[in-house]
């Protein structure tokens, strides 16, 4: 009897999970469907069955070269993530394994920077970028994306590292491991799921970042967020074209998310040593 209830519960839970997942995914699905409609079909109300035309994609590609924006997005998201990990792993290690009096305050302070609206610092940042010649440069934007995502990266890694028993590291030290060996051969392999999910999440965050990437770029460093923005028109909704541009922009990250979902979910829901 108990088994029957649990199966019933499981069925309900699964159904609920599917409904929630569909609800969350539906806007993306509808965007993809709309991208295969003509403009006239797109404004004619709700319709799940498009005519299958690819005219919007042709128009989008003809209007602005997609690949330049795509390459910039890849460079910026991957580059900023590697940069962030290089800074965050040592920072999280020191906070997790040799916390000082102010560690908690530093962590809170780091997080508090995320609470400030980005626009509040637009002018100072813009002036710094202007004076250092970093406007519309990939390196400048990579540093910017690294900085804005750093608090989250440090926090996530700190949480994973904290779950690794200090005794394991102590044992490594007893065996004569240097600090470098301890981080590279003992800590990192144990924290791989955590580091991987942090990396994936950071890539997604950097990929979708649309405030700084639009405001600090013009032509050379502009990523896919700028590409989508250029299809928003004051002369009409042009839903089909906008949907085609959005689909092209989210497709790479969607595919990456699909293939790495196990890693992502595991890293986000389990601790390091469970």
């Amino acid at each position, binding site marked *: 009897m108990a088994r029957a209830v649990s199966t019933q519960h499981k069925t309900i839970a699964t159904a609920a999970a599917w409904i929630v997942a569909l609800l969350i995914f539906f806007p993306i699905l509808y965007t993809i469907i709309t991208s295969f409609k003509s*403009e006239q079909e797109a404004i004619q109300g709700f319709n799940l069955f498009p005519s299958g035309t690819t005219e919007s994609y042709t128009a989008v590609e003809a209007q602005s070269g997609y690949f330049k924006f795509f390459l910039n997005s890849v460079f910026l998201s991957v580059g900023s993530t590697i940069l962030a990990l290089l800074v965050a792993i040592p920072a999280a290690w020191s906070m997790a394994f040799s916390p000082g009096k102010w560690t908690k305050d530093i962590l809170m302070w780091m997080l508090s920077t995320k609470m400030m609206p980005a626009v509040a610092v637009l002018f100072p940042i813009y002036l710094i970028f202007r004076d250092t010649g970093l406007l519309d440069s990939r390196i400048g934007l990579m540093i910017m994306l690294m900085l804005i995502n750093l608090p989250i990266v440090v926090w996530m890694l700190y949480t994973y590292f904290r779950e690794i028993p200090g005794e394991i590291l102590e044992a490594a030290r007893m065996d004569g491991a240097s600090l470098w060996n301890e981080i590279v051969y003992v800590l990192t392999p144990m924290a791989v799921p955590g580091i991987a999910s942090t990396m994936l999440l950071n890539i997604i965050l950097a990929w979708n970042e649309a405030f700084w990437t*639009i405001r600090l770029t013009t*032509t050379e460093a502009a990523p896919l967020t700028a590409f989508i923005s*250029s299809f928003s028109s004051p002369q009409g909704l042009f839903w089909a074209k906008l949907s085609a541009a959005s689909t092209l922009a989210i497709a790479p990250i969607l595919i990456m998310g699909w293939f790495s979902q196990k890693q992502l979910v595991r890293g986000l829901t389990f601790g390091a040593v469970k």
Partner: protein
Amino acid sequence: MKLRTLTLGLLSASTLAFAAHAESITIATVNNGDMVRMQTLTDDFTAKNPDIQLQWVTLEENVLRERVTTDIATKGGQYDVMTIGTYEVPIWAKQSWLLPLDKLGDDYDVKDIIPAIAGGLSVDGTLYAAPFYGESSFVMYRKDLMEKAGLTMPDAPTWDFVKQAAEKMTDRANGVNGVCLRGKAGWGENMAFLTAMSNSFGARWFDENWKPQFDQPEWKNTLQFYVDLMKANGPEGASSNGFNENLALFQQGKCGMWIDATVAASFVSDPKNSTVADKVGYALAPDNGLGKRGNWLWAWSLAIPAGTQKADAAQKFVSWATSKAYLELVAAKEGWANVPPGTRTSLYANPEYQKAAPFAKMTLDSINAADPTHPTVKPVPYVGVQFVAIPEFQGLGTTVGQLFSAALAGQTSVDDALKQAQDAATATMTEGGYIQ
């Protein structure tokens, strides 16, 4: 073999040298049909100016405004040519942020620019931006529904007629709303429409001493008329409808009348995008018998920021893109109906254009009926028909727009909205030093 290698080497070297010599100018623009078309026609410009390369940055209107403002205020130098509107030009020119356009060339024919538009883009008689396309606003209506209602739309209707027609055309059971008007909050959205409308009711934003006028009966009449008209005959959720939303509604056949930008005429009459393309008629924006109509004046224009290092190349481009020859180029490649409207008087005298664009005369009449220096019945201290050309207007206009949008949504009364608008405007103007 050696000779071939040498020739190839020389060729590559000269190509590299040329590429290094070619000057690249960056143009910031909005994504609309005319601008996108220009990007496809730039081969003509680069053929005539092989030493200038063009780089385009296309942005959504509000993002563009924010980006170019940031860039010009900090002298960031990211852009050499900017697409800006009639609101920005007088303010930025007074700040010395724009270069005067005095090298447009001998055959440019500045005098051919429609006077109302040229006036809006000049400060003290000097042109600071060249119009790429200009627009006013007018009534677009469904001829079939008007006929069914037993009415005939006059060329120059009154607001009372619009109300009467809207009541007769509204058929909510069949999804037809008598009239669709902007309700989405924003200085360039509902306030563009309402400010222009208020002019025909004799209202004004400020008196000669910059005292806000929302406590005057003219504003009460305007807002009450608008809210009543829309509640009885407008679409559901009108308070979130802007230009794009109303365009979609009209194209789907859900509006009897729509009062909005003249540039919309080419979209609602395009059978590819509109289900009512062959049923649309046009009339001047309504009036109330006070001598002013409720139509606005706007021109997307090309201007050159003072911080650019490439002023000469930029001016060459502006001259090309806004010349008479450019209009002929578009006509030759894409037909007269696709020529950017509202900038040159000669275009409206062209019989081929008149034939291709049935709304041409009404557009020109609407543009000529707007006077940015005398927008309303009583005198005002500001320039601008549907806006007030002061830096504070973007913020204040949007605040007032939110209050009026709330009145339309029924969240607040017309009287409360006007009182709050008066308070907000008084505070802004006092803070800005306009009211001592």
